[in-house]
């Protein structure tokens, strides 16, 4: 096992990823020019609203987009190979073994007519030539590891006999059968109740440490990100708006969209007189607005925003964001207004 630190070569290196879908109504630019890296021991929280491209990005990594309809460009480097250059068969050896994924709705992902244990055993045999009994034993071991009580008898249950939280645990067990290097979790707790969500988030964190892997956690919930992520990527309209270490995003956010998300979230900490919503709604990706995609909803837009698109650039003593406001102005707005109001400045 490699060392548990943020340095070293990245496990996953996504470079200039773009995904376009050709539809009857025209070309949907779902993801544009997206880059990020993931190292062992890191949890990258990918945040954004519906249609921001956060799920499409992970489907592209998993090679789950239909190549006939989706146009994927850029590079997805995994341990030195570009996943986008692999054939379908080669990709199949990576998918589920080196990179695995769990989804929002575990009930939709488990076959309703097969016992939970045998579905996990099947996943074992998909990549390893072992006997059924060995695979079954491995399945039991994993069900136990993810905290299913009486794993031995519960393995003989069908998915409908499991509660939502247990199904998600079973999915996590299935994702772990081949000791993957990367686990992609797409809204893993959105369908779960808050007390069960807490259990699953703890489990994902435990799994990350025990198996020494990298986790990509896709969510719309900034609270979930704050509690679990080491790094955060904020997406809007298929583009990266802000990307940096989690503690910086939550103590010194730089992009107006991130500010808007933080401000519009109601909190359990206190009741506010009025919430501060982001007016309007996200743009259609068939016809994205010119310039910065966020400018029609941005309170801080000024002269260049509707003409030029701001590049993702690092600011001194900060992290990269895509906004034309000067670094000084960003700091000022955060410190005097947003961060102060939300009690998030250090």
């Amino acid at each position: 096992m490699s060392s548990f630190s943020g340095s070293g070569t990245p496990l996953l290196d996504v470079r200039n990823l773009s995904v376009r879908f050709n539809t009857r109504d025209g070309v949907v630019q779902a993801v544009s020019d997206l880059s990020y890296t993931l190292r062992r021991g890191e949890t990258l929280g990918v945040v954004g609203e519906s249609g921001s491209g956060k799920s499409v990005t992970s489907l592209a990594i998993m090679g789950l987009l239909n190549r006939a309809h989706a146009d994927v460009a850029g590079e997805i480097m995994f341990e030195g190979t570009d996943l986008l250059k692999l054939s379908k068969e080669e990709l199949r050896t990576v998918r589920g073994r080196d990179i695995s994924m769990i989804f929002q709705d575990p009930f939709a992902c488990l076959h309703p007519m097969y016992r939970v244990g045998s579905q996990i055993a099947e996943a074992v045999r998909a990549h390893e030539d072992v006997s059924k009994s060995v695979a079954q034993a491995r399945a039991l071991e994993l069900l136990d590891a993810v905290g299913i009580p009486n794993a031995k008898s519960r393995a003989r249950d069908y998915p409908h006999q499991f509660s939502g939280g247990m199904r998600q645990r079973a999915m996590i067990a299935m994702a772990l059968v081949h000791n993957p290097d990367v686990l992609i979790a797409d809204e893993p707790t959105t369908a779960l109740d808050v007390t069960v969500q807490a259990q699953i988030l703890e489990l994902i964190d435990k799994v990350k440490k025990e198996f020494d892997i990298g986790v990509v956690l896709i969510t719309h919930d900034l609270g979930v990100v704050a509690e679990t992520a080491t790094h955060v990527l904020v997406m809007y309209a298929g583009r990266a708006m802000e990307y940096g270490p989690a503690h910086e995003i939550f103590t010194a956010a730089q992009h107006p969209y991130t500010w808007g998300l933080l401000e519009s979230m109601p909190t359990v900490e206190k009741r506010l007189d009025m919430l501060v919503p982001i007016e309007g709604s996200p743009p259609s990706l068939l016809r994205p607005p010119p310039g910065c995609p966020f400018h029609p909803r941005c309170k801080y837009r000024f002269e260049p925003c509707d003409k030029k698109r701001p590049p993702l650039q690092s600011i001194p003593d900060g992290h990269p964001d895509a906004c034309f406001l000067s670094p000084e102005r960003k700091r000022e707005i955060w410190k005097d207004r947003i961060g102060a109001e939300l009690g998030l400045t250090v």
Partner: protein
Amino acid sequence: MSTTPEARAGHGPLVEVEHLTKHFPIKQGVFSRAKGVVHAVEDVTLTVNRGETLGIVGESGCGKSTTARLIVRLLDPTSGAIRFDGRDITRVGQRRLRPLRQEMAIIFQDPYSSLNPRKSVGQIIAEPFAIHRTEKDKKQRVQELLDRVGLSPEHYNRYPHEFSGGQRQRIGIARALALQPKLIVCDEPVSALDVSVQAQILNLLKSLQDEFDLTYVFISHDLSVIRQVSDRIAVMYLGHIVEIGNSELLYEHPRHPYTAALLSAVPRAETNGGTSTRQRIVLSGDVPSPVDPPNACVFHPRCPRFQPGHCDVETPLLRRFEGDQEAACHYPVERWPMTEEELRHPFGGRAAAESR
């Protein structure tokens, strides 16, 4: 129905619910023999005062939606009593219920399935007028309503699929407002929406409440949303109200261990800001089946303060704390916040002696 703010301040209950219980029989076989019973709502007593928002919070299957549907008589109670605006409506028949329905409305969770895709926005919002034959100039009223909920009057002839989730929810709100109801049940009205849009809808609901003097029963599983909108809150677990009281007091000092666990389980942005040293109380296991609920205190199998021989034998009743807060627990939480370790040890003999 134009009530002045003074009248609103006058309070008095609009809805009074006593010992409300709803059981759903589980039927099986050709003769539909009852095989068991789902205990959806058990002995719920609450009041909703005029002009206030009562939040009902709890996990899936806790009976929060069933309670709200019983209040507006979309479901018939198994036992108990419901009074609306001074009238007993527990057993009122469908025909006499219809005029009452003008005074209550519902906003649903899913803005996609709650609007008929074959009807134009104008038809959808005007339907209550058609049913109750109240309005002469429907079109003008609908356009006023559209304008009030932040849509454009030109949207009158458009169809639901042309709108985003947030806009559809505005259409649902306009429909609910059409007959100028006294009570609106909001059943998870923002949980299908993105955060940035969610805040728009919550603000809209609040300003409508102020303007039209509305009373809300607001159902949500999201504790942050509930805090933002509610004056009082009822926390439900497995069909029971485990805690009820003033929203601010309840969040400052939850008395029931379940409320405490819920509050501590909410992920929040503040933790990474370094301002909070909060510890998460992780409840083990899942919510038990409402077909076969646990004995005595329904929360005891998951409770960190469970005391064998007491909690699983004697059912705790709601008892009163400062500020009219009520909780149903033999070993209520003494102070807040608490670590999980502290929570696990109620003040031993003293707590036990007190509660007996």
